[in-house]
Structures are given as C-alpha cells and as structure tokens.
C-alpha cells in the first residue's frame, strides 16, 4: 500500500532529513514509526501527506507514483488519507459535529450523507452524545478522539497519525491505540509516528525505527494480542 523506494529528502538549508529510505507497508497493516526527534518521522509523514516533495527516489501509494502528482490533484489525493495530528488541529469556533463533517463537506457530500457518517464516526469513538459541544469543552483525550473521528469519517484506506498520544496520560493513550487497532481490523492501513516506546511495545506490532534519516530497525508484525 505504501512503498518507499530509495527515498531521500533534503531541505533547502542542506539538511538531509531522510536518506535513501526503503520501506513497504502492506494494505491492512498497522505499523509504528519511532525514533528520536529529528530522526525523520515527521518528514516521512509530511511526504505522505504531500506537504513536502521528496528530493529523490519514488513514493508509491497503492501502486501509484505520487512524486510527480500535479498540484491540483493534491486535494483529491489527500481525501484518500486520514490524518491524526498531535495537536489535533480542531477548529474551536465550530461544534464537534462540524469539525468531523469537514472532510465530507470538502468532498461535496450531501447533508444527509454527512449527518449519517459523522454520527457513525462519533459513535465509533464514543462521543456521539457530544456532537453539539464545542471542542473547547472537551478533555484532551476527547479532543483527540474527535480528531480521530474526523480522520476516519470519510473511510480512508490509509490512516496516518503524528504523535497521537503525545499529550495524553498512559490510560488515555492505550484507549486511543485500541481505537487504531479497531480501524486496522476493518482493513485500514495504519501508520503511527510515536516515541512512546512502552506503549508501542505493548501493542505487539511492527516497529520501524528511524535514526538520523535512515531505517535503523524494522521488525515484528502485529499479533492479535493486546
């Protein structure tokens, strides 16, 4: 599903964030991306979101090379992804419902369809009762779950998460991870960047460790135990 071939990213200042990365994440796989800050986790996710373009090498998504994707095709590409951010990127001036509805609105879905899907997504993260609330009124864990609902409301095939538990206590973090596991169970490819080693080890999943822009360690596969 996600395939990096000899992929490098050098920033304008000369800093080489990723050096000849070779990686393959299969459809329906849940993999963790770990490493110290500055190891290249964020850059890798940015390349996947097309926020940055690779300097060399190829990036295949579902067999398609997205290196040379035209700028006007980027919105359509991003709609295939679901992204969970560390700071959740919720809009505080609108309700939980409207936040989750955003990916469907930009895709031009009908109001009826939006209502149905948003409620299904909020139900999935256990926040159906709070759809009329402002995100401001929710706890950190709840805000992150709204972020996850927004990331999956349009049923993406790939779910990316950048430090999704970065600001949460261990109990809440485990809850969030369990949610990701559920999306994997229904066939979504999930890639999570995290430096929370203890939590990752508990998950018993594939762990890709980056070090100074290179893959230092890549091993394990998801067991069904949690």
């Amino acid at each position, binding site marked *: 599903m996600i395939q990096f071939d000899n992929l490098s990213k050098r920033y304008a200042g000369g800093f080489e964030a990723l050096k000849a990365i070779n990686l393959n994440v299969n459809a329906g796989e849940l993999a963790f991306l770990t490493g110290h800050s500055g190891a290249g986790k964020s850059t890798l996710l940015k390349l996947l*979101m097309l926020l940055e373009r690779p300097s060399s090498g190829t990036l295949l998504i579902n067999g398609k090379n997205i290196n040379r994707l035209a700028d006007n095709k980027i919105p359509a590409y991003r*709609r295939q992804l679901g992204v969970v951010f560390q700071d959740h990127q919720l809009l505080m001036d609108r309700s939980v419902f409207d936040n989750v509805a*955003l990916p469907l609105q*930009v895709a031009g879905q009908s109001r009826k369809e939006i209502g149905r*899907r948003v409620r299904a997504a909020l139900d999935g993260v256990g926040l159906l009762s709070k759809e009329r609330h402002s995100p401001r009124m929710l706890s950190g864990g709840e805000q992150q779950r709204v972020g996850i609902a927004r990331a999956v409301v349009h049923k993406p*095939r790939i779910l990316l998460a950048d430090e999704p538990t970065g600001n949460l206590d261990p109990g809440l973090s485990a809850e969030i991870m369990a949610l990701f596991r559920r*999306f994997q169970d229904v066939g979504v490819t999930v890639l999570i960047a995290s430096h929370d080693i203890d939590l990752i080890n508990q998950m018993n999943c594939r762990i890709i460790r980056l070090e100074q822009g290179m893959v230092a360690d890549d091993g394990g596969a998801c067991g069904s135990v949690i």
Partner: protein
Amino acid sequence: MAQSSNAKGRRGAVEAKTGLLGRIRAAFGHHSHTFQDSLKRLAKDPLQTLMTASVIAIALSLPASLFLAVDNARQFENSFESFSQITVYVDNNASQKQISYIESQLRDIVEVASVIYISPDQALQEFTHNSGFGSALKYLESNPLPPVFIIEPMANVVLETNQVQPLLAKISQIAEVEDTQIDMLWLQRLRSLTQIGQKIVFALGFVLALGVLVIVGNSIRLTIHGRREEIIVVKLVGGTDAYVRRPFLYSGMLMGLIGAMGAALIIVVGFWWLGGSVAQLSELYSSQFRLHSLGVQGCLVLIAVGASLGLSGSWLAVTRHLKNIKPR
C-alpha cells in the same frame, strides 16, 4: 455499528458512491450554506461590516451621482432642442413671389429639416398678443416687422459646431436674405461642458472603482488572516483551492452589494431632497424640466456594479494571499 459501515465503505472511493444528481444537490447545498455562513460572519462583526460598506457606499455614490447630474444636463439640453433654430430675416420690400422663391431655395438645402414662414402680419399679431404693447403699436404707420423664416436644422447639424457656419453661409447667399441669427451657441457651450463632465465622471468612476477594489481587498485580506487556521485544516483534509476561496468571494460580493445598496439609498434620498427645489426653479422659468433620479433600473445596475466590484476585489485578495498559506 461504526465498524460494519467502515467495512462496507472501504470498497469504493467516497466520490464514486454518490450519484451525479446527489453531487449537484450537494454542490447547491454547499453554496447556499457558504452564502449563509458568509452573511452570518458579516453580521457577527456589524461595526466592521458597516464601516467597510459605508466607505464603499460613498465611493460608489460620488461618481454615480455625478453621472446622474451630467445625464440630467443632457436631458435639459434635449428639452431645448426647439431653441436650436435659425431665424432668417428677409428684406422688408421683398415681393410675395420672391418670398416663395426663398422658401423653395431654403427647402432645397440638405441640412434643413423644416422651414416655417412667418409673414409680417402674423408676426405683428403675435407681438401684439404677447408683448402687451398692442395699443402702442396702433400708432405705427406701417408694419416694421420683416418677413421671417424659422429654420430647423437636421439633428447632426445641431451636434456639430463646424457644420453650422457653412449652413449659415449658404442661407446668406440667397437673394433678399438680410440677416441670419442662431440661438444655439449657448446650447453648444453647454454641450461641451457636459462632455467634459462626462469625461470627469468616467475618470472619477475608474479611480473610485479601483478604490472599492482596494477597500474590499484589504478587508478580505484581514478576514483571510483571521481564518488562517481554518484554511490550513481545510487544505489538510483535501479541500480544493476553489472550496477555500468560496466563502471569501461571497463575503466580498456581499460587501460590494451592501455598499452599493447604501450608495443607491444616498442618491435616491439626495435627489429627492434636491428635486423639489429644482422643480420650483424650472417652474419660475416656465420649463417642464424635472430632475430625474436613479430609478429602479439604475438602482439595479448600481447594485450589480457594486457586487461585481466586491467580487473582483476579493478575488484579487484571495489569489494573492491564499498562496502564502500552506499547511506547515
């Protein structure tokens, strides 16, 4: 429940599942939603909206009222079209035969639209009737008034100054014609003045239209700045540039629209206020001239101009400033 629906939806892309009709309906729904949202945002900050709208209103009402003033002056000119005549005085001693010869000569001139003959007797009668000197005239031994032709030139002669002199020369050449007199010189002066006025209106209109573009553009720039976070999130979840642009275009259009409505109000009230005095004045001159105001059609044109200026201004601002907002 969420899981089962996820499993079903995974098969097809989101777009493929919605029919064409559904997509059109959704697009309409989105447009009306965006429009309402833009209205709500303008209403949320009434002071800012009112200030921007009133600046636009003033900027639009200035050239529009000047345009109306020039238009009124032109109507005034047209109401005096009958004054742009040439009076031809014939020798007092001319015989009836000579007079009818002159008349046929005058009718043969291409630039002449109509010829009216006023005999000395007719003229005297008219003068007696109108002047109030009737009894005094009785003491005159003979009728001092000459035979007169009133000539109405073709419309194009009235318009073009340089065609008047050759026409006068042609008339003077006819035998027994003593003198010619025109009373359209002042009208031509007025006409030149209104032409200058028209040019000023265009120049002023152009400059102030640019001003409206800048006003709307600046206001939209501030709005874009205030909604930066939202723009980034929309882009991250796959919103197209057109989607991002839309609410700003609606806001700009609405601002122009509201401003133009204000301008129309200013003009209608102003001309109504002025109209009474102008009517009084023209009655003193026993003229039928009345100040005409904007009218429904004029209001609609003004509002359309305002809305399109607002739209263009926001378009310029959006194209310029959205480029600078990239998701991190």
